[in-house]
């Protein structure tokens, strides 16, 4: 991990040369931390070898502790709501997950898979086993079971509340691993530190926010890491791990379609830009087959894994990569003349077959009204789709497009470090860095469609900003170091830490050590390799390698270093403020400051407790769908509609009842056996998101199914 004196100058450059055929492992190229005591005197190779080993070991230990601290930071910055309020589950969706986890812990996994819930969607019920993403509940249930088997008696609620901070620590470690594969461990540590604090991720993984994204973001980053690692190493073992990690992602979140579309896009990009290599095949083809079968194993996905348009991209690229692999194989075994003959023959015959098949496929897909895409995916691709056709998707506040200030609020300083990171990824361009660039571009587009998807942008922004910051620190610190008084400033300086740009300039470095390199790359972390290079150095030193290192004036670089540190300080201050003030509200406990101090409103829980004490177990409660999950979890009563919103007609029925005069509403509720109606009114304290605020959505959704409810009837100046 330390950038030792000799190893950098002789390692082969990264794959800026297309179709490089070197079996190299990226982390053997030490792009990393600047060490102050760099000037390795060439007095005796033994002492420098020992020095290198020591620095190497010190670097490893230091980065281990840094990672540990980053994990602790990620965990503790998310604890504000526990400190300010209590260890309670927030919001609406987490209550459903909590109820499912309670059921799992009480009844075991077979009952969970076969659970039919008759306490929601009153006459219809809901098949929980087949309509829930089980990853989160199974993870928390496993943690709870494991801790209890060790006789640590944590309650299910505690485990649920703290699952998200623990997995955010894992996510920052996964970011370290991913960025290390792209640019080296200095960038990795920076990116991990940035991800631990980025407000957008904090907002969905604060302690108490027990939702799918808590584990899904970790699974996302880890899957991408394993994909890049397989791409760099060409090892089938990592391909298997990649498929298993993808399976965990499919279990956890509906956003897995992002992975199964991004990776084929990247493979296509590599093929189109002429960077096809056998490692690409090994990285992609097993993932598609194994991943499809594993995805079909999850009940909520089932046969959608092969029948919906979200997955077709992966199959298409699967076919493309096989064609390309075949072409390269035939090109390899034929002579060039015969290959030309083959190409002309195949092109003329194959083109006709191809067109026929494409026509059939297009006809099949076009015959389905939504072209095979699900409603949510369509609303991502066409931002105006939801507001025209599916008012329920349009009404959720987190599905609205974000405003410009929300970018600055959510990723703060990273917003303008990202372009610098993109440029840094292009010098040199490797498969891994092209993947990261593609990731950021697609996630920026999707985050512009739905504010909820800022969450997918956050890891990409952290990775690229980490790369940018790390490169900047590299250059600045090196400028200062080489201009310190009493430092040798001649061409001995290839002892120094190399900037990737300048390593490329030495592409014509002696070939002798290049061929020697790859065979020694396997035990890359082993110090005997560095020691051996030390021994080889004197023989190579004959050729003066005049490396042009980038060095800035001393004063400017000190100032720039201070400014960068100040920038990071601003980021930290903002993140802590956002975590403490903006994103730690449990939203079932409200506070307000008035002239006589702080008032705490626990109205929600009081209402549910009233219901649970004063009504019969079989009584049905009708409310707007927002409160369904909380009512079933805390009040333990049957509800008519809840946050799952899978049945639009049922919700429209309740909406119509809420928008009709008393007699008509009584008829509707009587037909649903409703005994109690729950309405939230915030006028006494000015609570802004009560049912009066949501009333127009009730009208719209009801009017979408029952035409006698017309929105203009409910507006005062309806002719305007």
């Amino acid at each position, binding site marked *: 991990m330390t950038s030792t004196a000799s190893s950098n100058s002789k390692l082969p450059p990264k794959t800026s040369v297309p179709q490089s055929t*070197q*079996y190299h492992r990226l982390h053997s190229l030490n792009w990393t931390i600047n060490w102050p005591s760099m000037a390795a005197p060439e007095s005796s190779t033994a002492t420098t070898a020992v020095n290198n080993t020591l620095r190497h070991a010190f670097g490893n230990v230091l980065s281990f502790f840094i990672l540990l601290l980053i994990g602790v930071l990620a965990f503790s910055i998310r604890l504000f709501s526990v400190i300010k309020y209590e260890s309670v589950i927030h919001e609406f969706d987490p209550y459903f997950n909590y109820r499912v986890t309670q059921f799992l812990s009480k009844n075991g996994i077979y009952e969970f898979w076969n659970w039919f819930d008759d306490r929601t969607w009153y006459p219809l019920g809901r098949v929980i086993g087949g309509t829930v993403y089980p990853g989160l509940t199974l993870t928390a249930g496993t943690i709870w079971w494991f801790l209890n088997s060790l006789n640590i008696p944590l309650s299910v609620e505690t485990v649920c509340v703290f699952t998200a901070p623990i997995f955010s620590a894992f996510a920052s470690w996964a970011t370290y691993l991913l960025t290390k594969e792209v640019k080296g461990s200095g960038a990795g540590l920076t990116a991990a530190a940035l991800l631990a604090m980025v407000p957008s991720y904090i907002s969905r993984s604060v302690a108490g926010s027990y939702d799918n994204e808590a584990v899904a973001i970790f699974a996302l980053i880890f899957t991408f890491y394993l994909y890049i690692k397989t791409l760099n190493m060409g*090892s089938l073992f990592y391909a*298997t791990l990649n498929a298993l990690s993808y399976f965990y992602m499919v279990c956890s979140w509906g956003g897995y379609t992002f992975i199964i579309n991004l990776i084929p896009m990247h493979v296509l990009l590599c093929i189109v830009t002429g960077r096809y290599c*056998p490692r690409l*095949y090994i990285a992609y083809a097993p993932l598609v087959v194994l991943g499809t079968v594993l995805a079909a*194993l999850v009940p909520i996905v089932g*046969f959608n894994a092969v029948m919906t348009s979200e997955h077709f991209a992966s199959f298409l690229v699967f076919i493309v990569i096989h064609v390309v692999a075949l072409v390269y194989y035939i090109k390899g*075994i034929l002579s060039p003349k015969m290959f030309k003959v*083959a190409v002309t023959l195949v092109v003329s015959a194959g083109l006709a077959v191809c067109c026929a098949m494409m026509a059939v496929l297009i006809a099949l897909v076009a015959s389905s009204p939504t072209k095979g895409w699900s409603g949510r995916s369509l609303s991502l691709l066409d931002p105006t789709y939801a507001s025209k056709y599916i008012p329920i998707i349009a009404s959720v506040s987190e599905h609205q497009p974000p405003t410009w200030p929300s970018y600055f609020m959510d990723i703060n300083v990273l917003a303008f470090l990202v372009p610098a990171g993109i440029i840094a990824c292009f010098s040199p361009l490797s498969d891994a860095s092209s993947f990261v660039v593609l990731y950021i571009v697609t996630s920026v587009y999707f985050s512009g469609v739905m504010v909820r998807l800022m969450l997918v942008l956050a890891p990409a922004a952290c990775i690229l900003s980490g790369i940018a910051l790390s490169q900047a620190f590299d250059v600045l610190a090196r400028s200062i170091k080489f201009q310190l008084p009493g430092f040798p400033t001649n061409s001995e300086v290839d002892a120094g830490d190399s900037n990737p740009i300048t390593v490329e300039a030495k592409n014509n470095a002696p070939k002798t050590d290049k061929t020697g390199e790859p065979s020694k790359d396997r035990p890359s972390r082993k110090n005997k390799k560095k020691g051996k290079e030390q021994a080889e150095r004197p023989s190579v030193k004959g050729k003066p390698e005049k490396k042009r290192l980038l060095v800035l004036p001393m004063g400017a670089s000190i100032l720039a270093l201070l400014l960068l540190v100040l920038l990071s300080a601003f980021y930290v201050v903002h993140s802590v403020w956002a975590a403490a003030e903006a994103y730690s509200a449990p939203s079932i406990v409200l506070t307000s400051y008035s002239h006589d101090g702080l008032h705490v409103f626990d109205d929600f829980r009081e209402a549910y407790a009233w219901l649970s004490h004063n009504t019969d177990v079989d009584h049905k409660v009708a409310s707007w769908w927002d409160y369904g999950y909380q009512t079933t979890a805390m009040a333990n009563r049957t509800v008519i509609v809840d946050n799952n919103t899978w049945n639009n007609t049922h919700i429209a029925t309740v909406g119509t009842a809420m928008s009709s005069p008393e007699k008509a509403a009584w008829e509707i509720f009587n037909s649903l056996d409703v005994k109690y109606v729950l309405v939230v009114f915030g006028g006494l304290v000015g609570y802004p998101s009560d049912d009066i605020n949501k009333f127009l959505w009730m009208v719209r959704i009801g009017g979408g199914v029952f035409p006698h409810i017309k929105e203009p009837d409910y507006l005062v100046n309806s002719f305007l």
Partner: protein
Amino acid sequence: MARSSGKDAQALFQSLCTAYAATPTNLKIIDLYVGFAVLTALIQVVYMALVGSFPFNSFLSGVLSCVGTAVLAVCLRIQVNKENKEFKDLAPERAFADFVLCNLVLHLVIMNFLG
């Protein structure tokens, strides 16, 4: 034009055959295995077209297991092929061990999905 393309096709076929005959035996064995797996998948698809796709998960798991082992065998072939400079220092035993592990995982999942 047609005649010359016919002759070209013959010459192409000949050169393909001679070039392929020069590959080592262990690679040919792997190629045979890949061909067998793809053939089995095709037979399953034809059978499904004849009989209907009722237990769709069985059909899917059958076809995907054949395609899966074919893909994994191709990966093994890539890694074991002496002409691939990228994998020069990967021991063929390690490649085979990875192949076996991946196949184990694949077939475990297939057995679960078979119904």
